[in-house]
């Protein structure tokens, strides 16, 4: 465990050095996109009630984390793969998962300021008042970890050329065709049934219902499902990373 945390810390430092020039830009763009989703959708839908506003706000935050974990992280892996850097990494004396975690944490942390800004923008724009729970923190951790684990799983398993295609698909599905920015009952039955198995709606629900806790309390199901998805993603990833040719 000490070796794990030491490796993680040093790799994290390495990553921070590597991206030190891009990181502020990344955080800024991430913030703009998230705020843009809130403001943009509120233009598309003219009369927004409190529920829709809550969906939009928390949906924008969820999309932001999904982008980082399932789009940015896999693209970086694909880039490395294409450059032939994975073999170098494989020869390093560090636990594989520490390497992944150090990669993902940088981008997730860079996305956090955006989340705060979104909450602020939404509170101003829609006059929202939230009944926030401290469980928001584990929710954010779990959503990020789940998204990154799935993203890595696919990035390590798929050919680099296909990763760009897949990340575009994920973004569109998550943004437009998932019960993230709107309730699931707006979807046709079959789509709702599919989403009962996909992680997107649970990610949105975990964020939404910890930001504004529903009357019945915070449900356990999204957390369980997300933990399951994270486990599957990590299993695939660590299998691919430790597999010997």
């Amino acid at each position, binding site marked *: 465990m000490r070796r794990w945390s030491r490796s993680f810390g*040093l790799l994290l430092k390495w990553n921070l050095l590597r991206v030190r020039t891009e990181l502020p830009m990344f955080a800024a763009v991430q913030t703009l996109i998230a705020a843009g989703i809130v403001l943009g959708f509120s233009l598309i839908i003219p009369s927004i009630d409190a529920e829709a506003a809550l969906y939009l706000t928390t949906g924008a935050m969820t999309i932001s984390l999904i982008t980082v974990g399932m789009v940015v992280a896999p693209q970086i892996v694909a880039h490395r793969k294409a*450059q032939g850097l994975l073999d170098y990494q494989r020869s390093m*004396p560090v636990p594989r998962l520490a390497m992944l975690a150090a990669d993902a944490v940088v981008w997730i942390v860079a996305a956090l300021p955006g989340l705060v800004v979104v909450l602020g923008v939404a509170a101003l724009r829609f006059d929202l008042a939230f009944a926030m729970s401290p469980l928001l923190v584990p929710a954010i951790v779990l959503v990020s970890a789940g998204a990154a684990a799935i993203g890595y799983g696919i990035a390590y398993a798929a050919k680099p050329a296909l990763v760009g295609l897949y990340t575009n698909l994920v973004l569109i599905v998550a943004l437009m065709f998932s019960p993230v920015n709107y309730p699931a009952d707006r979807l046709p039955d079959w789509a709702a049934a599919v989403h009962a198995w996909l992680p997107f709606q649970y990610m949105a629900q975990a964020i939404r219902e910890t930001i504004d806790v529903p009357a019945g309390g915070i449900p356990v199901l999204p957390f369980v499902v997300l933990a399951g998805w994270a486990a599957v993603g990590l299993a695939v990833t660590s299998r691919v990373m430790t597999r010997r040719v």
Partner: protein
Amino acid sequence: MSAQPAVLEVDDVVKVYRGGMRANDGISLEVAAGEVFGMLGHNGAGKTTLLNQVVGIARPTSGRIHIEGHDAVADPEMARQVCSMQPQAQAPLEGVAPAEAIELMARIRGASRARARRRTAELVEGLDIGAWATTKGERLSGGVQRLTAFAMAVAEPGRLVMLDEPTNDVDPVRRRLLWAQVRELAQAGCAVVLVTHNVLEAERAVDRLVILDEGRVIAHGSPAQLRGEHAGQLRVEAETVSPEVARDVARGAVGGRPATVAGRRVIVSIPVEDSAGALAWAAREQQEGRIESFSFAPVSLEDIYVRLVGPDPDTEEVDDAPVEP
């Protein structure tokens, strides 16, 4: 064989890649502490494949690999801890400067902050890359990237150090600096495995070596042993005025020794004791205007290497056949 216990033991390793490529075909070798062990061989001979199996990037189809007595195939994590490797692929230096990368790698390998700093300074100085120590990786020349990768591997060396073509892209002066660092590693007690195509330099840098050919060890020993019967010999090379003269010169070369003719060149191997006579012969031939120039050199490992793995002399374009006197 040296008295030191082997740090790396490779025993009858066979590696057949998916798709049927037989990259290693029964390789056995031992590398002891304090030894620089060279691995030579043509492109695709299976050198990188063997190193990858030692650190658990590839899995042997059969055979055993032990590092300090521990099974490296069963425990690749252990192998990566004990062995520091400079892979043939470039290191991921994007966005980081050599000094930062070397220091971080030393710390990842377990060095304290102070020691990592000290080793980084030593290596930056020792390899003469101070001018680029704080330049970001993407702006470094290929050779400096390679030197940085070398320094990353050896800043906090494991008991086993494996270097896959460390001098590629490196200039001749810095190559010597690098060999000096390799020698220091061995003196500090590391077992060093060195893959290189630079046979001339390997001859000076390594204690023992193997030559691989299509996944098999075809020669094994110290540079002097490999030179074998050629060890006490000199290679006399004379450039004659024409191919016809070359054949004629070859017939009477150094008292009728067997000579090889290649175009206008005549090549004779002579024992070192006969060098005075050979010199007199060459000078006389030169005076008579039949030889334009000549040189004396020890039979090199490269001669041996090319003889062993080079193209089959029968099918070679060059007329390199011995001439009957």
